[in-house]
């Protein structure tokens, strides 16, 4: 039976059917779920349960019928335990949770990310490419070094096929141009006066910097940013540990993707987060 979306229920146990090193310390997993669903929207996430270890939010990189793609970057014990899982192992999935990116029609789509922020941007790219008319898609990815560029081959391949423009850079110049993605981004915004929308996912401090850049350009119609530096428990809006001030928006259901207008209202954005205890600290 194909459901509209997965039910908000206890973890659904899925089987790992593919595990591949995607880039340094980051693995791509395909997880086969026991229920089919129509689709996951780009920007949505799941709560991933590594049995006996931890449960944490993970962006959706792809989804088809009942095969879920995620990309896991090693951070601490939870992600490490996931990375140590083998094909055939079971993990729990709750979701799909959260509000997605909402790309409007007839704009330049500027996808900007780094690290595991590339996972929702991958699904966003897939979704944009599925649209009837040719979309003007620009992906800006940056990392310390080539080995840390996530989905490098995948985006490069789309670029080579002329389906997207891939603006790629590294701090050390080991791939693409040397520098930060914001360089090419600003170049693009200066050269193209047609309306653009930015979709950003990555470390919150980086997003805040990009937000400030975007605000300078009147051809930027909207900036949609996925907040991921927040501790989550429930994923569906109950516990409020993921909330931002002063709006009281929970990033699990009111986000994780927020638009320009919303980001303006979130005073915590790029500055503060809450710990597991609820204590507010500097990011």
């Amino acid at each position, binding site marked *: 039976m194909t459901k509209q979306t997965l039910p908000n229920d206890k973890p659904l146990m899925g089987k790992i059917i593919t595990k591949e090193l995607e880039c340094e310390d980051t693995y791509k997993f395909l997880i086969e779920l026991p229920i089919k669903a129509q689709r996951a929207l780009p920007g949505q996430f799941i709560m991933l349960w590594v049995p006996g270890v931890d449960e944490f939010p993970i962006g959706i990189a792809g989804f088809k019928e009942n095969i879920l793609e995620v990309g896991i970057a090693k951070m601490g014990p939870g992600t490490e335990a996931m990375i140590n899982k083998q094909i055939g192992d079971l993990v729990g999935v709750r979701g799909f949770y959260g509000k997605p990116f909402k790309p409007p029609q007839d704009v330049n789509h500027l996808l900007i990310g780094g690290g595991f922020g590339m996972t929702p941007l991958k699904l966003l790219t897939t979704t944009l490419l599925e649209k009837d008319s040719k979309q003007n898609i620009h992906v800006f990815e940056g990392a310390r070094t080539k080995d840390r560029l996530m989905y490098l081959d995948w985006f490069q391949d789309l670029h080579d096929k002329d389906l997207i423009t891939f603006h790629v850079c590294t701090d050390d110049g080991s791939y693409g141009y040397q520098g930060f993605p914001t360089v090419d981004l600003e170049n693009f915004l200066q050269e193209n006066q047609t309306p653009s929308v930015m979709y950003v996912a990555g470390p919150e401090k980086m997003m805040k910097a990009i937000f400030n850049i975007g605000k300078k350009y009147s051809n930027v119609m909207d900036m949609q940013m996925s907040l991921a530096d927040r501790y989550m428990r429930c994923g569906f809006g109950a516990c409020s*540990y993921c909330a931002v001030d002063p709006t009281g928006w929970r990033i699990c259901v009111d986000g994780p993707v927020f638009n320009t207008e919303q980001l303006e209202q979130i005073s915590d954005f790029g500055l503060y987060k809450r710990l597991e205890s609820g*204590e507010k600290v500097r990011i």
Partner: protein
Amino acid sequence: MSFDTEVGDIQLRNPLILASGVLGTTYSTLQRTYEAGLGAVITKSIGPRSRIGNPNPSVFALQEIRSVINSVGLANPGYSIFREDIQILNENKIPTIVSIFGENKEEFLEVLNGLKDLSVLAFELNLSCPNTEKGGTQIGTDPELVKEIVSMLRKETEIPLWVKLTPNVSNILEIADAAIKGGSDALVAINTLKAMVIDIQTKMPVLGFKRGGLSGAAIKPIGIRYVYDLYENFGDKIPIIGVGGIYRGEDIIEYLLAGATAVEIGTSLGVAYPENMIRFFQMKIKKYMKEHQFNSIKEITGGAHR
């Protein structure tokens, strides 16, 4: 027709109160929920020290029975840090009840004394959380200890004290009696029921803490029963606040008829659009009051006792 509600000396604009632990970890979610139309809000239970709570998974839904199981385990920043959130709520004039807990008398005292200078509508004493090793249920099932703690805190403040009761008890009336004798200003029933979920594929308890508490629609008939029993025995002595499984305006009426003066709502507000839920609650209560010619909430309270 008016929604005005009095819980003892406390005046509320309506009988809907946010239950502790749902949307209650930050001043901003509390404020947002209040502004959506509640009568008051209750904070997450606050203890003496910062606690990171239990490992995840710690909250998930059980869809088929419209319920949630949680083992958050009183994760909270401790009263000295959470003061700041309460202060903002004070500044913004949000009628705030602070839920407090401790593992023993001394800790309860410390937390109360650390917060009693703030503008707090009432303190709700969480004697009933099933998700910690100490305190919580252990205290809430011992009438002597309940009486002792309540009367001790009673001496420290004029602020009303509400005692939140656990359903995981042989005789709730005994505990309620102890709370009243200790000087409680209201009884709140019920907290979550001891529960657990095991995943049969991995053969593991799903919650990181293994055990948890059940809330949501599954527990409504249980909450109604306890409120009814409490009202029958103590309805003339003390206001009773009904909690557990409220998903609809009808459920609120059911609690009022059972004997509740006001209600607390948790799980059903822990959704994407709590604002809509609150609006539906209010619409339904209004419609009911009109149809049944009630002019005040008070008139509904206890209506099923005849």
